[in-house]
């Protein structure tokens, strides 16, 4: 299915098409974060709602490459670029620019005959001390995410959240309880490790997270080497902060953690409703996505003439932007419902 009607209406020649397979750049014949199998996939970052298996060729940042190999298999045909490095596909100039979402996550800039489009992928503006800082990129067309695009989502500074987590961890420790945080294995986990290791080195994680740590460490990301989860004895387990994936099966390792408290760290923890859905004892509002003020700021910074909104509250954010006299539209309805929104 091909949707070119909006460019006719807007009188613009767009670089982008929104198809069932995802965001398509017809001039270069490649897709960005395709939903279905394509010949050439350009990947913003390794999360499973962006990087899917089955594509013939992949292009991503140097840091995302080992992550893709880990997640999609070492046999995939993947080529990588440094941030800011230009690459031509069928005459379309393409480059990656930091999105600040997680280490190696990128916005994709495509340029053809002076017309520029930027596809943000997932992004956040706050510097987390690990991911490359978000870089505003000038463009004519900007595709923005909208995971937290409601005015109720306003984040607090990372230092405050991290300090809160540390206090909680210390309290647990003094009560001889381990502290278990469930966090997304790629991104959130490394962000927490990196920020909390400055407070105390008693951090460990589930093997599924350590796999990602190793891949990123080998690629030069500064992630501290942690104590092995399985080497921690019952007597010392209460000292530890344990990072686990969101859904874990009951593992043998838990035998050595008889007492513990559970926490969730996610942007959804901001609302009472979100906390209600969580089974954890404590909730920390920490997101790898931009909050409402940041989303607005990023859109303005791009100076885009046209803004396409996807990945979340697309309709609402597009309507809001339109009311701000920005030419915006939601593009989510072009995609099939296979997308599973993730942090």
């Amino acid at each position, binding site marked *: 299915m091909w949707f070119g009607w909006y460019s006719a209406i807007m009188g613009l020649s767009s670089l982008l098409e929104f198809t069932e397979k995802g965001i398509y750049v017809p001039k270069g014949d490649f897709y960005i974060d395709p939903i279905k199998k394509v010949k050439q996939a350009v990947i913003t970052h390794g999360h499973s709602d962006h990087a899917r298996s089955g594509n013939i060729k992949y292009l991503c940042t140097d840091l995302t490459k080992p992550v893709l190999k880990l997640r999609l298999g070492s046999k995939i045909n993947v080529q990588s670029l440094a941030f800011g490095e230009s690459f031509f596909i069928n005459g379309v100039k393409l480059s990656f620019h930091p999105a600040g979402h997680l280490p190696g996550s990128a916005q994709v800039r495509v340029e053809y005959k002076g017309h520029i489009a930027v596809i943000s992928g997932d992004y956040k503006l706050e510097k987390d001390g690990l991911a490359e800082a978000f870089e505003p990129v000038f463009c004519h067309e900007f595709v923005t995410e909208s995971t937290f695009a*409601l*005015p*109720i*989502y*306003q984040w*607090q500074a990372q230092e405050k959240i991290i300090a809160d987590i540390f*206090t909680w961890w210390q*309290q647990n420790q003094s*009560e001889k309880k381990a502290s278990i945080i469930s966090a997304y294995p790629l991104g959130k986990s490394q962000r927490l490790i990196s920020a909390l290791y400055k407070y105390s080195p008693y951090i460990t994680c589930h093997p599924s997270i350590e796999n990602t740590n190793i891949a990123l460490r080998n690629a030069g990301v500064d992630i501290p080497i942690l104590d092995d989860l399985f080497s921690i004895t019952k007597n010392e387990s209460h000292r530890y902060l344990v990072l686990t994936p969101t*859904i*874990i*099966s*009951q593992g043998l390792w*838990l035998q050595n953690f*008889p*007492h*513990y408290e*559970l926490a969730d760290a996610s942007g959804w923890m*901001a*609302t*009472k*409703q979100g*906390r*209600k*859905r*969580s*089974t954890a*004892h*404590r909730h920390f509002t920490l997101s790898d996505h931009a909050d409402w003020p940041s989303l607005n700021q990023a859109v303005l910074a791009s100076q885009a003439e046209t803004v396409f909104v996807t990945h979340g509250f697309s309709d*609402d954010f597009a*309507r*809001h932007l339109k*009311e701000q006299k920005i030419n915006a539209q939601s593009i989510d309805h072009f995609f099939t419902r296979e997308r599973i929104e993730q942090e």
Partner: protein
Amino acid sequence: MKFALLLQLLDESKNDISKTTALLRYSKSQSQDHVLDLFRFFQSIRSKKICTTQDLLIWTKEICNLPDWLFEKSLSHCNDVLDAINLLLPINVESVKLTLPYVQNLYTLKFNDENQIKEFVTKQWSLLDHDIDRYFFNRIITGNFRLKISDLILFDFLAAYFETTRINISIFHALNLLHSKSDIKKQLKTGKSKALIKKFEPVKEVEYIEVNIEELSLHEYYVVTPIWIGVEIQIIKFNHDIIIWDLTKQIKIYIEEFLYQKFKSRDEDFIVNAIYISSKSQNSKSNTYIIITDFISIGQNIEFSKSLQKQTNFIEQWILSLDEREGIYSNECLNFQNHIELSTYYNQMDLNKYVSILVELPDESKRILRPELFQLKAVLLYAQKKDQTFSHYYDQYTFGVLQLSTIVPIVKLDADLEETEVIEIHQFILENTIERFGPVRSISPQLIFNLQYSRIERSKRHKSGIILKNAKIISTSFHSALDELSRLSHIVQKAIMEEEN
């Protein structure tokens, strides 16, 4: 830990142990006086309605300057207006904390008009920490400040804080020691709490006598029997000179039993409400009366209004109609010198089949000591028939609780429920069987029950590592979600806390 976080944890925790833990964490750095203050605050929690939620909405709209649709969208996404209001208001960088004294001060505020209220509220919004503090401020001022904190939780918390048993705390509470500025720790150690206890005259027997309520002089000095075991009561303050007790459940059973003896039939269903009065005259001699205020025979659809005056005639007639003046006996009266002696009685409540112990304090206020059992929420995991030949339905259930993200079996119980419920559950079992192992069916974990138990024992033979003692099904909880299930770690922690005590 800041006070607002404590409020959030108390408000949002899914189980009692988390609430107790939160209270303890908060209190760790607080003085004994502050902790007792906190206890009194939660015991008598109230709301101070300064304005309505609608007012807050209007003021928030003015401040946020959002279009209606986006405002509405935010509200509906949050599904909690006061939460949405807090999240929509601007973030405060430098902020004031909602402390216990701050909240206590809120209760004393008085306003002249609506403008003054608006000025106050919006000012506080710009000062209070937006994180949680502002949300609870909104709850308090709109009269929506109800946190579910039972006495049990508060007692467990105080017991842990003062490093004593829950029984001691219950007793200290009953003796009003938690409400005075006293060194609890010291009194617990020395057992020197007798100064507050006065000697009571026991009342051994309660007789039916004819009495006209209007003839009771309100200038006479009436007191209620000091210590009375086995009766659950509710105080009705009738007048400052007279205290009338509305006897509930337990005495009703006595009366119903008495009526059964009378009519030798249970075909008639009776509901009897009675008033129990004991008077003390100048010479200190006690008289005790039981007055039946409501005598409802369901079979005959007779109902009587609650007004005493109107019923006097009926009561008199009814009492007169009883040809044998059989007495209703109250239980023994206990004498004790200090909290340690009282705790001996308290510990034997179960043994002596006491429903509760009533304590009258020197200021004539009353407290009830009641034994508390533990409760938990568990999900139906397996079902079988108690007796392969005689059971019509699946009537023996194995329940599970959460251990991290899996469910472990914790106890097997007989279906001690109404037959209609058993049938309903039986149907559910048939429809939700995952597998059959001989006579046992494994059930998709969906159906949640409230269980009760008295204590736990460790067991190597059981998968959960524990056995629940005196476990019993209290009720089904069809509408509970799986995430409300009790956690094994909490049950064990609770038991460890008990053991340590």
